[in-house]
């Protein structure tokens, strides 16, 4: 059994960590947090130069042609660094959708631009409150144009193109939903930035008015493709969450070692120790579930739907738990703007909702386990 990343993949992780420690220190994250820029453009450029934006994009489209395991180790580091860039929307959502369902021409048009950092992509799925479901999609597609409103759309205000879920029929059936590719700079789409709990990751409202759109994937398969994209993104985002969990745990541990109260390091008090031990437990469970997700993703295994849901749930719980208790370990200082704890708390709770909330994925997991048991 070799249920671990290879030495080359670990080396890649180390490189990414080094790169991000240098190019994405908390100070850089704060630039975006404080609203001085919508995202870190320099970092985005650097990620392109490192080849991280096109890891899974085939060489013929300007990428590195590597596998998803490589992307997983980069994702972990992006989460650990709290990187304020549209990595997840561009790489996990838009690029994955293109790789899964894009025509040769569509791939040719967008993938090289993703790899080079020229194009930011996203997935426009939600229309107000609610979790992924064909029922919630009202945005209408007809005659090659889209009309309707999407929100929240991750990185919608800075994106160059979007994969859009739209309605082509009037029933709640999956087959009445189709995916479209929209060039957001070609007119017909108005983007309005929305404030959200994590300003380091932008959200927007996109209004489509007779916006030109081309179909992505075969007619009637929109929902099925979308489900696959969400599963893949769930694994990748879970790695970001695991990276964030580990960083929050480390921050708490380091503070507990440094901070003296009652004449001793607070890390010698069992109340603090046990809190940190529990954080280690949830981070470890999440990491192990994520490894299984990574295996399923990289081999396109039949187990992927179940593995993705498990990784997503476990990593969401771990990041929320670790980031919350990291503030608690820091006491009053943890509640200041000056300390970095809140940046992870914000990211943890925003990430928990981006692909559908925890309760949605819990529901998915149980459905998928039942399906497997019935088979």
């Amino acid at each position, binding site marked *: *059994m*070799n*249920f*671990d*990343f*290879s030495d080359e993949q670990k080396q890649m992780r180390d490189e990414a960590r080094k790169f991000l420690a240098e190019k994405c220190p908390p100070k850089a994250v704060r630039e975006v947090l404080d609203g001085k820029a919508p995202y870190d453009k320099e970092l985005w450029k650097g990620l392109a130069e490192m080849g991280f934006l096109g890891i899974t994009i085939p060489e013929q489209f300007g990428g590195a042609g590597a596998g998803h*395991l490589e992307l997983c180790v980069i994702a972990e580091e992006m989460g650990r660094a709290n990187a304020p860039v549209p990595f997840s929307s561009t790489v996990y959502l838009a690029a994955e959708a293109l790789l899964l369902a894009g025509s040769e021409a569509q791939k040719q048009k967008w993938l090289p631009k993703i790899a080079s950092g020229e194009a930011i992509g996203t997935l426009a799925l939600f229309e107000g409150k609610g979790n992924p479901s064909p029922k919630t999609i009202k945005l209408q597609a007809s005659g090659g144009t889209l009309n309707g409103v999407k929100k929240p759309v991750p990185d919608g205000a800075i994106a160059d193109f979007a994969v859009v879920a739209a309605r082509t029929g009037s029933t709640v059936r999956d087959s009445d939903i189709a995916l479209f590719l929209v060039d957001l700079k070609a007119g017909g789409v108005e983007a309005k930035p929305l404030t959200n709990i994590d300003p380091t990751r932008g959200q927007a409202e996109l209004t489509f008015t007779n916006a030109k759109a081309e179909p992505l994937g075969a007619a009637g398969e929109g929902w099925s493709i979308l489900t696959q994209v969400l599963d893949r993104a769930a694994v990748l985002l879970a790695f970001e969450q695991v990276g964030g969990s580990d960083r929050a*745990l480390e921050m708490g*541990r380091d503070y*507990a*070692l440094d901070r003296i109260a009652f004449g*001793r*390091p607070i*890390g*010698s008090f*069992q109340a*603090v*120790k*046990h809190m*940190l*031990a*529990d954080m*280690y*437990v949830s981070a*470890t*469970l*999440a990491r*192990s*579930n994520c*490894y*299984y997700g*990574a*295996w399923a993703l*990289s081999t396109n295994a039949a187990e992927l739907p179940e593995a993705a*849901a*498990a990784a997503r*749930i*476990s990593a969401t*719980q771990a990041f929320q738990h670790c980031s919350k208790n990291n503030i608690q370990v820091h006491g009053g200082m943890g509640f200041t703007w000056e300390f970095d704890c809140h940046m992870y708390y914000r990211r943890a709770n925003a990430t928990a909702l981006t692909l559908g909330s925890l*309760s949605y*994925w*819990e*529901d998915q*997991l*149980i459905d998928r*386990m*039942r399906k497997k*048991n019935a088979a």
Partner: protein
Amino acid sequence: MNFDDTPQEAEFRSLARKWIDANAPKQYEAELSKSSLGRIRLEKEDIVDVGKAWQKKKADGGWACLHWPKEYGGRGASPIEKVIWQQEEGVYGKLTQPFQIGEGMCGPTVMAFGSEEHKRHYLPKLASGEHIWCQLFSEPAGGSDVAGLRTRAEKKGDNWIVNGQKIWTSGAHYSDCGLLITRTDPNVPKHKGLTMFFLDMKSKGVEVRPIKQANGMQEFNEVYFTDVVIPDSQRLGAVGDGWNVSLTTLMNERMSIGSRLATGFPEMFEFCSNLMTDDGLAIDDPATRSKLASWAVKASGLKYTSYRAISSLSKGERPGPENSIGKLVSGSMLQDIATYAMDLQGAAGALTGADEEAARGQFQQMLLSSPSMRIAGGTDEILRNIIAERVLGLPGDIRVDKDVPFSKIPTKGR
């Protein structure tokens, strides 16, 4: 990343599988498969007798205590081969329960500190199941604080005279030998005055009394020592070095990788999939689904954490500290699952008769037994301390009794 055996591992697995297929006591397979939680029992036979027969057969075939050297009754196998054997042994591994303390803790301690003569005499007997060993560490005054133990050993000529009491000793009533830690010098700080021995459990002055547990069963014992004579040759390690010797024993306890801990999740998932409530199947209820999902990812998280450790072994590396979370997670999970399974049954959840169709009494039994899972082999709190101190590197607690002579440590809180 893959779950495949290396060619050598595959060869070993096929060898083990063939041998087990030809030799395992298949007449007990169904019964052993059913007893996934709590005490393992066989309807018509004594589990210790059946276990001894299986252990003997394994020893004769060269499949007992695999990771031990051949001259002491083992096979000289690698850690990953031991894991593969456990996977292949499957339900029959439950028959080895009476020998686990001997194989995992007492044997390795004797191997590290015993004389060559003792090793050649005792270890093969332990490996073949002829002798069962127990571990006599805990005392009424020293549970989590093992070093607070009070059982005295006093030197008299070439012998030691032991007086005192041990508690929570699994299997003492059927054990032949015991690993015993005693206090030999009460006038030095507590960790420094301890000495380790092994003894014949049939020695004069040893009295074993079963403890009736909170769940109504009797698995543990109290063991009383009244002027028990132990020859100095049965001392393990130097006089006063018992604490260090005990660390060898306990380290081996925590190395039990690959032995899957029960979480209760598969039973709970099946139960909820079939339980009809007033509002339909339990598994269709959103609150129940949410709980099930959280338990599911804990169970799978533990499974894949152990896979990570097995992968390290396969590469010839030492597994990381991840495996220390196993008992901490599974113990409270069993308790939570049992509580919720009963909640779903309403007032009838309290009934325990075997004819109660809904759960056949299994969750009620789980509820009553689960507190021990959170205490035995290191309480949840001690395990959290271990993770915090050894994995995260946090400072140890301030120990007020550390430099005080043992005889001066207060014995009552008020």
